[in-house]
């Protein structure tokens, strides 16, 4: 079965009213987007700010419900599930954010944060935390430390450890390397590729940077103003982009 299928998903936001008697304007953040992601594959979503890529990620994570269309995870329509069923499914799709500092509670040890997805499903197992830390290249003893005691790259490793501690089949990475320095960015990208090989993870990799997406993804979606403008195999798109917009992104990234 297809791991993740997004079918004609649309999300609209009402903008603040400009005038009392006129209906508020509507922004279509995602406009009839469809794609699929198979197990163990990496799909990149590229676009500028306001392209709808993060809104799409929030719908895949079931933080928001689409106004039209369906998000199917292992065949389950996420928007149609009861809150309890959704919660029991959550360990199977996890999230890594852009800012590893913001995504870790500053008042809790990283071990506590990493164990959170386990606790949520009532499976607090200490050795799983150590194992996850080990998998991301940190030491089990680091579980006792607080987020501020780590460097930016290490914090992102902690965030990844939390995301994989439940052994998910899908990882959504929303600008997960954008805030990192160049040398650290390469380390984290390598880590994601290692984990993918090791755990058979599928990764939905959202980024504004076409050079990063092009070098780690199997297929690529290019989004602009909520619409998918190009969707295909990564190597094909990087070699011969069909759309002018994709070419302009490549120029801006210094790839052409």
């Amino acid at each position, binding site marked *: 079965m297809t791991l993740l299928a997004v079918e004609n998903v649309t999300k609209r936001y009402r903008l603040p009213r400009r005038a009392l008697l006129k209906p508020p304007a509507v922004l279509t953040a995602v406009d009839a987007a469809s794609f699929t992601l198979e197990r163990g594959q990496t799909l990149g979503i590229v676009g*500028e*700010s306001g392209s709808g890529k993060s809104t799409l990620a929030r719908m895949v994570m079931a933080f928001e419900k689409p106004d039209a269309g369906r998000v199917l995870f292992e065949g389950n329509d996420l928007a149609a599930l009861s809150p309890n069923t959704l919660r029991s499914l959550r360990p199977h799709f996890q999230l890594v954010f852009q800012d590893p500092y913001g995504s870790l509670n500053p008042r809790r040890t990283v071990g506590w944060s990493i164990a959170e997805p386990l606790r949520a499903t009532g499976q607090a197992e200490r050795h799983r935390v150590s194992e996850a830390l080990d998998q991301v290249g940190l030491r089990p003893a680091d579980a006792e430390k607080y987020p501020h005691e780590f*460097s*930016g*790259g*290490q914090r992102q490793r902690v965030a990844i450890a939390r995301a994989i501690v439940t052994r998910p089949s899908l990882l959504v990475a929303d600008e997960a390397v954008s805030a990192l*320095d*160049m*040398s*650290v*960015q*390469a*380390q984290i*990208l*390598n880590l994601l*590729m*290692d984990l993918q*090989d090791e755990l058979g993870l599928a990764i939905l990799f959202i980024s*504004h*940077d*076409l*050079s*990063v*997406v*092009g*070098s*780690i993804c199997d297929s690529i979606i290019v989004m602009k103003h909520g619409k998918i403008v190009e969707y295909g195999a*990564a*190597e094909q798109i*990087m070699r011969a982009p069909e759309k002018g917009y994709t070419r*302009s*992104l490549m*120029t*801006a*990234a*210094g*790839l052409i």
Partner: protein
Amino acid sequence: MIKASKLSVSLGAGQAVRDVSLLVRPGDRIGVVGESGCGKTMLGLAMIGMTPAAAKVSGSLRLDNAEMVGADEKSWQVQRARRVAMVFQEPMAALNPIKRVGDTVMEPLIIHMGLSRAQARECALSLFEEVGIPDPEARFRQFPHEISGGQRQRVLIALALTCDPGLLIADEPTTALDANVALRITELLARLARDRTMALLFISHDLAAVARSTEDMLVMYGGDIVERGKTAAVLSDPRHPYTQGLLSARPRPENVRETDGRRKRLPTIPGAVPPLADLPAGCRFAGRCPVEMSQCATVRPAEREGTICHQLEAAT
């Protein structure tokens, strides 16, 4: 002409900038590249006299023969009004949200240049045109939140140009912007420097942007300039191990798979930049360097042909 020699900025126990020597001539376009914590922002701030109060600046910095290290805030204000200007990363934060952008740009023209309101308006409008703001008359009356990020950055560049500076320092001016917008701002800065024979210090972690906008570049690590030279030469033939590591760590979407179909891993620099106070006393890159020798951590390498590295010293 601006000349820094042995310019250092100390912050507590650490040195954010260490013995930097730099000559900036009119029309020079110099890129400053490095990762966060390498001292590139602090160098930019030192050159405009805006280092934080806790920082101690030493060495020498001459702006047109005036020594500015140890100069008081008043003489810096004179220089900032006439000679040097800076553009920052976050254009929204750098603009007063309750002031129309036209007024923001007119203010220094009236205060520092002594223009009348009408003259200042004329001048500000022509600056808006010069930095590529479409329909300047209409933009003039708008507030910062009403215009796009790219337009805001253009307003800030126009503001920086009001004093007709000899040196424009741009600190990560494109980092907060979308790629296409960033590209146009980069090109704008390079064009302004050429047209006005104004020197440009382009501080950025974005190698593509630096390649596009500058002729010369400096690579900083741990407060040292580890490599300098023509931008094209440094990027195509990096000599310092750090520059080499940095360039090869860039993701490149070509030949991404091994022969067995596995994805290739990216070359990396091991470890992370240590905190200022923990930097090695010798070569700052010691401890992470793939070709490190025994003396590297303790002895400072001398500069040879634009780089500081014991390996290269030994080779020549």
